C-alpha cells in the first residue's frame, strides 16, 4: 500500500517538475481533478451505501489500520474536492505575474506542495486513525508550510511561516501523546479504539489532550494566533484552501471524538459544555478582533476563527441536547454544525479568492488604500457581496440556513425546558456574533468597494481574467443552491449527522424539512417582492427627471476622498468597547483636540491580539533573558573554551565516580 502511494507521489512530482513552465498549472489541475472526481464518487457511494474500506494494513507502532470512507469522511471529501478544484483553477491567473519573477523550480515546488496538500487532506479524513492519520496530518502541515512562504523574499512571510510550523507541531505533539495514551491502554490508536478507551479508562484527560491537538489546527481560542499571521502571508489561493478546508480537518477530528463518546451520556454532557464554551469564546473573540482589522486578509482570517466558533457552538449544543435525551436538539445542532462547515468552506474560499483578485491588481491588502473598487472590478465586487451576505448569515444565502438550524436547536432547548441556561448562552453568543459579523462585512465591502478611491492604484485596476471568475463561480453556485433550496441540501447532511450522533434522521426529515420548505418559499417571496418593488420604482421614475450630481457634502463644497470613513473609523465604536481584548500599537501622532489648524500628521494604529503577546511573546522574552546569561560564557578567548571543556570532563568524572552516569 505504502509502496504504491510512494510511487504515485514520485510520479506526480516528476510530472509537475518536468512539464514546461506554463503547462504546470494544467498538469496540477489534471491531477487534482482526478483525485477530486475519485474522492467525490467514493463519497457519494459511501453516503448511499455506508462505509467503504479501501485498504487495510498493519503498522509496527499502532497495529492494524485502514483507509476507509464512511459518512463523515464522505462529507469532508466533498468539501475538500470542491475547494481544491476551485483553488487550482484560480491559481493560474493569480500566479501568472510571478512566473517570470521566480525560478521554475519555485513554481514546481508550489504546485507539488499544493497537490500533496490536497492528497494529504483527503488521506486525513479517510484514515482510520493511528499512524497513518498522524502521517497524513504531518504531511498536510509540511505541505502547507511550503505553500505559505511563496513570496519568500518578504521577511514577514518567512516569519509567519515559521510561526505556523512551530504552532502546528505543538498541536501535533498533543495528538501524538493522545494516540500513544490510547494505544497504551487498548493496543490500537484507531478512532474505534478511542471508543474502547473512553469506556475503560478515565476519558476526560484524553479528550482534552486530543481536543487541544485538533483545536490548534482549527484555530480555537487561545490557539488561534497562527491564523491571522499565516493567512495574510500566504498567496490568496492558499489562504482560501487553508481557511476553507484545512482548518476544518481540526473540526473533523473533534467530530470524530464526539462520535466516539456517543454511548456515555454523562461524559457527552461534560464534553458538550466544554465544546460549547470554547465555541462561544472563540466565536466572540474572533469576530470582535475581525472588526478591528484593516487588512483584508487578516480580517478574513479572524472571521474564520469566528466561524469555527459557530461550528463548535452547534456541536456543543448537539452534544448537550443529545446527552439530555432530546434527539431533536442533538440533530439540529449537529446538522447546523455540519452544514456550517460546508457553508464556510464555500464562502470563505470565495472571499479569500476575491482578496487575491484585489491583491493581484493593487499589490496591497490594506483596506485604507482602497475604496470605489466596485467601479473598476464589478464582478469581483458582486461575488464579494455574495460572500459577505452569506457569511453574515443573512437570507437568502446559505449561511443563514446553518445558523437557523443551530438557533432552532437552541430555541427548542429553551422552549422544552432542557438546558435552558446553556441554550440561552448560545443564543446570546450567536446573535452577538451575527450582529458584529454584519458590522465586519459591511466595513469590508463598504470601505473596499464603495465610495471613492483612496489611492491612485485603484483607478489603474481592472477586472481579473475569466478563468478566475469561472473558478469562483463554482462555490458561488453552491452557495446559491443551498440558500434557495435548503430542503434538498439538508438530506445528505442529515445522513451524516445520523452517523455521528446515532439519533434517528427521521427527526430531521419530520422536523426541519417542513420548516426549510416554508423557508425556501419565503425566500422566493422575498426575491419576488424585491424584484416587484424595483419594477415599481422603475415605472414611477420612468416619467420623472433623473439627475446626476455630486454627493451632498452638507454645505461643504470641497470634499475629497480622504474625508470618507475609513476602516479604522468604521469600527471605532466597537473598538472602544473591545479595547481590553487587544493591544494597540501606534505609529506617529493623532490630531489632538487643541489643534485648530492641524499640520500634516502621520498616524497608524495596529490592533494586535492580546493573546498573541500572552502566548507568543513571553517565551521569546524568556529565551532572550536566558541568552543574555549564556552569552557571557562566549568570551572569544580560546583558553576560556579549553577551560570549559576541562570543566565538562571533570564534571563527567565526578558524576561517574558518584555513580550517576
Amino acid at each position, binding site marked *: 500500500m505504502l509502496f504504491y502511494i510512494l510511487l504515485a507521489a514520485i510520479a506526480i512530482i516528476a510530472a509537475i517538475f518536468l512539464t514546461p513552465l506554463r503547462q504546470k498549472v494544467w498538469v496540477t489541475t489534471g491531477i487534482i481533478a482526478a483525485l477530486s472526481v475519485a474522492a467525490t464518487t467514493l463519497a457519494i457511494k459511501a453516503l448511499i451505501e455506508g462505509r467503504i474500506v479501501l485498504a487495510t494494513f498493519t503498522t509496527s507502532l499502532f497495529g492494524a489500520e485502514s483507509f476507509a470512507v464512511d459518512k463523515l469522511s464522505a462529507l469532508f471529501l466533498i468539501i475538500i474536492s470542491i475547494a481544491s478544484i476551485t483553488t487550482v483553477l484560480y491559481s493560474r491567473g493569480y500566479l501568472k505575474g510571478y512566473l517570470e519573477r521566480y525560478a521554475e523550480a519555485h513554481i514546481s515546488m508550489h504546485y507539488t506542495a499544493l497537490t500533496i496538500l490536497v492528497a494529504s487532506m483527503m488521506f486525513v479524513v479517510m484514515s482510520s486513525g493511528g499512524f497513518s492519520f498522524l502521517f497524513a496530518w504531518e504531511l498536510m502541515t509540511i505541505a502547507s508550510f511550503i505553500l505559505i512562504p511563496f513570496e519568500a523574499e518578504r521577511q514577514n512571510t518567512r516569519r509567519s511561516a515559521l510561526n505556523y510550523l512551530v504552532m502546528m507541531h505543538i498541536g501535533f505533539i498533543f495528538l501524538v501523546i493522545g494516540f500513544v495514551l490510547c494505544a497504551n491502554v487498548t493496543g490500537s490508536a484507531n478512532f474505534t479504539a478511542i471508543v474502547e478507551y473512553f469506556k475503560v479508562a478515565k476519558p476526560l484527560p484524553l479528550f482534552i489532550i486530543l481536543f487541544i491537538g485538533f483545536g490548534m489546527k482549527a484555530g480555537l481560542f487561545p490557539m488561534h494566533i497562527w491564523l491571522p499571521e499565516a493567512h495574510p502571508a500566504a498567496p490568496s489561493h492558499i489562504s482560501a484552501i487553508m481557511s476553507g478546508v484545512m482548518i476544518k480537518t481540526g473540526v473533523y477530528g473533534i467530530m470524530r471524538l464526539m462520535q466516539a463518546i456517543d454511548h456515555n451520556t454523562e461524559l457527552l454532557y461534560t464534553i458538550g459544555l466544554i465544546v460549547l464554551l470554547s465555541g462561544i469564546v472563540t466565536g466572540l473573540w474572533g469576530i470582535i478582533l475581525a472588526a478591528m482589522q484593516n487588512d483584508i486578509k487578516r480580517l478574513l482570517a479572524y472571521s474564520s476563527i469566528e466561524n469555527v466558533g459557530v461550528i463548535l457552538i452547534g456541536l456543543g449544543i448537539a452534544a448537550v441536547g443529545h446527552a439530555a435525551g432530546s434527539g431533536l436538539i442533538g440533530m439540529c445542532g449537529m446538522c447546523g454544525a455540519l452544514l456550517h462547515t460546508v457553508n464556510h468552506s464555500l464562502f470563505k474560499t470565495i472571499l479569500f479568492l476575491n482578496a487575491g483578485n484585489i491583491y493581484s491588481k493593487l499589490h496591497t491588502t490594506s483596506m485604507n488604500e482602497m475604496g470605489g473598487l466596485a467601479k473598476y472590478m464589478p464582478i469581483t465586487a458582486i461575488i464579494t457581496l455574495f460572500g459577505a451576505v452569506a457569511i453574515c448569515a443573512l437570507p437568502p444565502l446559505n449561511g443563514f440556513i446553518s445558523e437557523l438550524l443551530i438557533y432552532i436547536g437552541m430555541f427548542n432547548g429553551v422552549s422544552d425546558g432542557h438546558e*435552558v441556561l446553556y441554550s440561552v448562552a448560545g443564543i446570546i453568543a450567536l446573535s452577538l456574533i451575527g450582529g458584529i459579523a454584519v458590522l465586519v462585512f459591511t466595513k469590508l465591502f463598504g470601505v473596499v468597494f464603495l465610495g471613492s478611491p483612496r489611492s491612485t492604484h485603484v483607478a489603474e485596476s481592472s477586472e481579473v481574467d475569466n478563468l478566475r471568475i469561472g473558478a469562483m463561480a463554482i462555490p458561488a453556485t453552491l452557495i446559491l443552491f443551498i440558500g434557495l433550496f435548503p430542503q434538498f441540501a439538508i438530506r445528505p447532511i442529515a445522513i451524516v449527522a445520523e452517523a455521528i450522533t446515532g439519533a434517528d434522521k427521521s427527526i430531521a426529515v419530520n422536523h426541519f424539512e417542513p420548516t426549510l420548505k416554508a423557508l425556501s418559499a419565503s425566500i422566493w417571496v422575498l426575491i419576488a417582492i424585491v424584484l416587484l418593488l424595483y419594477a415599481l420604482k422603475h415605472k414611477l421614475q420612468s416619467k420623472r427627471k433623473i439627475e446626476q450630481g455630486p454627493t451632498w457634502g452638507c454645505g461643504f463644497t470641497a470634499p475629497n476622498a480622504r474625508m470618507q470613513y475609513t476602516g479604522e473609523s468604521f469600527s471605532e465604536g466597537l473598538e472602544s468597547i473591545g479595547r481590553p481584548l487587544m493591544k494597540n500599537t501606534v505609529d506617529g501622532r493623532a490630531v489632538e483636540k487643541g489643534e485648530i489648524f492641524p499640520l500634516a500628521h502621520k498616524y497608524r494604529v495596529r490592533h494586535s491580539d492580546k493573546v498573541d503577546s500572552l502566548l507568543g511573546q513571553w517565551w521569546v522574552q524568556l529565551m532572550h533573558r536566558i541568552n543574555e546569561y549564556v552569552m557571557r560564557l562566549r568570551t572569544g578567548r580560546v583558553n576560556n573554551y579549553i577551560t570549559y571543556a576541562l570543566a565538562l570532563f571533570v564534571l563527567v568524572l565526578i558524576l561517574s565516580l558518584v555513580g550517576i552516569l
Partner: protein
Amino acid sequence: MLVKLLNTLVMIAVALSITGVINRTRALCAGRKGIRFFQHIYNVHLQLRKGSVYSTTTTALFRIAPTVYLGATLLAFLFIPVANLEPMLSFHGDIIFVAYLLALSRVAIILAAMDTGSSFEGMGAAREALYGALVEPALMMGMATLALFCGYSSFADIFSMAQEMSVNITVVMLLVAYVFGVIMVIESGRVPVDDPKTHLELTMIHEVMCLDYSGVDMALIHIATWLKNAIFAVIAANAVAVIFSFNWWFAAPLAVLATGITIGVVESFRARNKLSRNTTFILTIVAMSALVLLTGFLLIQNIEI
C-alpha cells in the same frame, strides 16, 4: 384566509397611524395645533411622484438598496400576527427569520450609505452597524423569553400558546413589552438614541444614512421605517394583550396608542443622549432582557415544582 387578510390590514393600519400619533402627541405637548394626522402619508405620496438626484460616486447598489430595505422589512412584516389573528406567513423558527430579515434590511441601507463616499453617511453607517450589532442579543433574548413561555418559535404559535399560562407571567410579559418598545426606539432612530428632527448631520444616525436619497427612494425608506415600527409595536402590544385581553381589537389600538404616545411624550420632554452614551443605553437593554429571561426561567421552574 380572511383572517390572514384582516391581520395584514390591521397591521397596515397600525403602521400608518403610529407616526401620526407621535406627531399629534408632540404637537399637544408643545401646545401647537400640529400637522394633519395623515400628513406623513401625504408627504410620501408626494415623494413617490418626484424625480431623483443620484450622486456620481454611487454604483448600482445605491439604486437597488432601498428596494431590498423595504422588501426585507415587508416580508418580516407579513410574519407578525396581531393578537389572535393569523399572520399571512408563518413557519416554525420564523422568529429567527424575521430577526435576520431585519438585519438584511440594515445591511442594505448601511452599504448604500457607504456607497456615497460621504463622511457624514459613513458616520451614520458605522453607528447603525454598531448599534444594530449590540441590539441583536436583546432582540433574540426577548424572543427566547417568549419561546420559553410558549413552547415554540413561531410568532403565530407563541402568542396563542401564551394565553394559557397562569397569571404569574404578568410582570415578565410587561417587561418583554418594554424591551421590545425600547428595541423599536433604537431600530427606528428615535429619542433618546437618535433624533429624526435634528438639524445637524453630525449627530444623526438613521437620517444621515439617507441624505443622498430623494424622491421614490426616500419614499420607500419612509415606508420601511413605518413597517419596522409596526413590527416592534405589535409584538410589544401582543405581549401586553396576553395578560389582559388577547384580541386584535385590543392589541392593535394598544400598539398604536401606547407606542405613539410614549414616543411622543419622550421626544417632547427628553433630550437625546450624547452619542457616547448610546452604547451604554443599548447594553442596558441587553442586560435588562437577560434579566427578564432569567426571571422568566425562575418563574417557570417554580410553576413546575
